[in-house]
C-alpha cells in the first residue's frame, strides 16, 4: 500500500530544473532542507543547486553545494559548505532522487533516505525520515527582490538512523525532524529578507507542529508574506496570515561570535549576533482562535553567501532555541513546549 503522505510528497516535491529557454533560469535557485532538533544535537542539512552567475562561469552552468551544520548540546557548531563539481551531480526529474557526489537524498519506501559525509569535516550520517504530516505550499511565487520564491514544507517527520559527529556516534529512533523545499529565481543581494522557523514538541504524544514565515524587503518595511501554519497530527489545522498575526522582537542574542560557514567568511563578516532577536513573540488571532508563541534563541551559526549583485554578502543566521505555544484553536486548547530552528536572513 502506498503511503498517501509520501505519494503526495513525491508528486509535489520534485526538483524544478529550469528549461534552457526559461529566462528566469539565469537566476535559478533550489534546495532541499532538513532539520533535526534531536535530543543530543541540532542538525541542519541543505542540498542546494543554483545557476552559476559568477562572471567566469560558463553561461547556463550551475553550482551545487551541500551545507551541513551540527551543534551538539552545549557544544560548538561543526559543519561546512561543500561545493560539489557539477559532473558529480545527478538529479532525476521524474522522482525525488538527488546525488551530489557521494551525498544523496531520495524518496523511497515512504520516506526520505539521506546519506552524506562532509569532505573535510568529521560529520557523516545516514537517515530515514518518514513524513508524518502533510506538506503545505507556504510560499507560492512570492516576490523576493526582483524574483520569486516557492516553498513547500513538510513540518514533521520521524527520523531514524545514524549520525556521526567527530568521534561520537548517535543512533536515532523516532527523532523529530522538519523538511522543506524551496525553488525560484532571484539573486543574492536583491532587496529581500526573511524570518522563518518551525517548532516541534519535545514530548511524545503532542500532536501540534508549527511553521512560521515572514518575508519582507531588506529593510523589513515592506511585507511580502506573513504566515503561521499549525498542524494537528498529519493534517493542516489552521493557517493565520497577514493581519491576523503580530510579531515582536525582544532583545538580541549575545554571547560568543557565531561561527561562519564556509569558515573563510569569518574574514568577510567578522560581526556579532546583533541582528538576531533574543526572543520572538508571535501572536495570532482570528475569531475565537488565538495563539501566543514565544521563541527563545539559544545558539546561532551563520551561513555566508557572497552576493551576486555586488561584493557584499548575505548572511543567513541559523538559530536554535526553545518554543512555547499556548492558545486555543477550534475550541481546543493548544499547548506546545518544544524546540525549533529559526532562520533570520540579514
Amino acid at each position, binding site marked *: 500500500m502506498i503511503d498517501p503522505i509520501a505519494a503526495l510528497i513525491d508528486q509535489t516535491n520534485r526538483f524544478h530544473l529550469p528549461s534552457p529557454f526559461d529566462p528566469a533560469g539565469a537566476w535559478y535557485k533550489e534546495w532541499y532542507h532538513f532539520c533535526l532538533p534531536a535530543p543530543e544535537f541540532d542538525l541542519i542539512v541543505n542540498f542546494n543547486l543554483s545557476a*552559476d552567475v*559568477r*562572471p*567566469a*562561469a560558463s553561461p547556463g552552468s550551475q553550482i551545487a553545494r551541500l551545507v551541513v551544520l551540527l551543534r551538539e548540546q552545549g557544544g560548538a557548531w561543526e559543519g561546512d559548505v561543500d*561545493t560539489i563539481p557539477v559532473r558529480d551531480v545527478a538529479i532525476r526529474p521524474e522522482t525525488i532522487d538527488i546525488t551530489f557526489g557521494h551525498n544523496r537524498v531520495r524518496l523511497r519506501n515512504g520516506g526520505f533516505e539521506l546519506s552524506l559525509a562532509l569532505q573535510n569535516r568529521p560529520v557523516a550520517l545516514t537517515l530515514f525520515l518518514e513524513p508524518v504530516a502533510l506538506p503545505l505550499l507556504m510560499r507560492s511565487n512570492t516576490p523576493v527582490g526582483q524574483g520569486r520564491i516557492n516553498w513547500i514544507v513538510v513540518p514533521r517527520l520521524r527520523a531514524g538512523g545514524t549520525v556521526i559527529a567527530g568521534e561520537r556516534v548517535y543512533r536515532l529512533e523516532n527523532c523529530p525532524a522538519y523538511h522543506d523545499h524551496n525553488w525560484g529565481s532571484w539573486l543574492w543581494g536583491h532587496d529581500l529578507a526573511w524570518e522563518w522557523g518551525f517548532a516541534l514538541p519535545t514530548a511524545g504524544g503532542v500532536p501540534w507542529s508549527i511553521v512560521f514565515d515572514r518575508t519582507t524587503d531588506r529593510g523589513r518595511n515592506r511585507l511580502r508574506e506573513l504566515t503561521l501554519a499549525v498542524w494537528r497530527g498529519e493534517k493542516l489545522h489552521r493557517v493565520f496570515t497577514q493581519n491576523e498575526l503580530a510579531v515582536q522582537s525582544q532583545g538580541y542574542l549575545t554571547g560568543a561570535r557565531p*561561527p*561562519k560557514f*564556509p*569558515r*573563510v*567568511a*569569518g*574574514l*568577510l563578516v*567578522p560581526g556579532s549576533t546583533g541582528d538576531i532577536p533574543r526572543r520572538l513573540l508571535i501572536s495570532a488571532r482570528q475569531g475565537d482562535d488565538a495563539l501566543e508563541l514565544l521563541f527563545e534563541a539559544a545558539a546561532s551559526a551563520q551561513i555566508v553567501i*557572497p552576493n551576486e549583485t555586488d*561584493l557584499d554578502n548575505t548572511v543567513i543566521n541559523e538559530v536554535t532555541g526553545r518554543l512555547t505555544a499556548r492558545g486555543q484553536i477550534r475550541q481546543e486548547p493548544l499547548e506546545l513546549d518544544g524546540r525549533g530552528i529559526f532562520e533570520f536572513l540579514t
Partner: protein
Amino acid sequence: MNSSPDLATAGAFVRTSLALLRQEYGDVYFLLCRRLAPRALLLVIDGEEIPLRFTPFEIEFPAALPRPRVHCQTTSEAILDVIDARLTLNEAVAAGRLILVGDTADLSLFHDGLIDYVRGMVRAPSAPFLLERFRRFAEVRPDSP
C-alpha cells in the same frame, strides 16, 4: 587549474592566485590595484620573500623591493589557520604568527586590500582548486621560521 604552472613555492601560489583573480574576477583585481597603487608590499611566507608592487592597473612581481611600504611575514600554516577560522586575523597578529610592519594608514589600506582579495577569490570558480593545491603544498613544507 589542472594545467597550472609548477606550484612549488609560496610565491608561485601568490602569483597564480592573482592571475586567477584577474582572469575570473577582474573587477576585484583592478579594485585591488586602484586601492593599493602605488604602494609595494614585501610578503614573506615561510621565509620566502615575495615582493609585490601595485600599479593602477597591474600587480607586478619585481625581483626585489628597495623600500616596501608594508612588510608582512607569516607562514603557510598560519594562512590556512585563518582561512579555516582556527584563528582570526587579530589573533594571528597577537600570537606573532602574522607580523605586520608599516604605518597605520598603509596597514589599514592593505587590510582592506586583503578583504577585497578574499571577496574576489570566494567568487572565482577555480579558487577552491588552487586552495586545495595550497593545502597540499603547506602539508609538505618544513617547519617555517
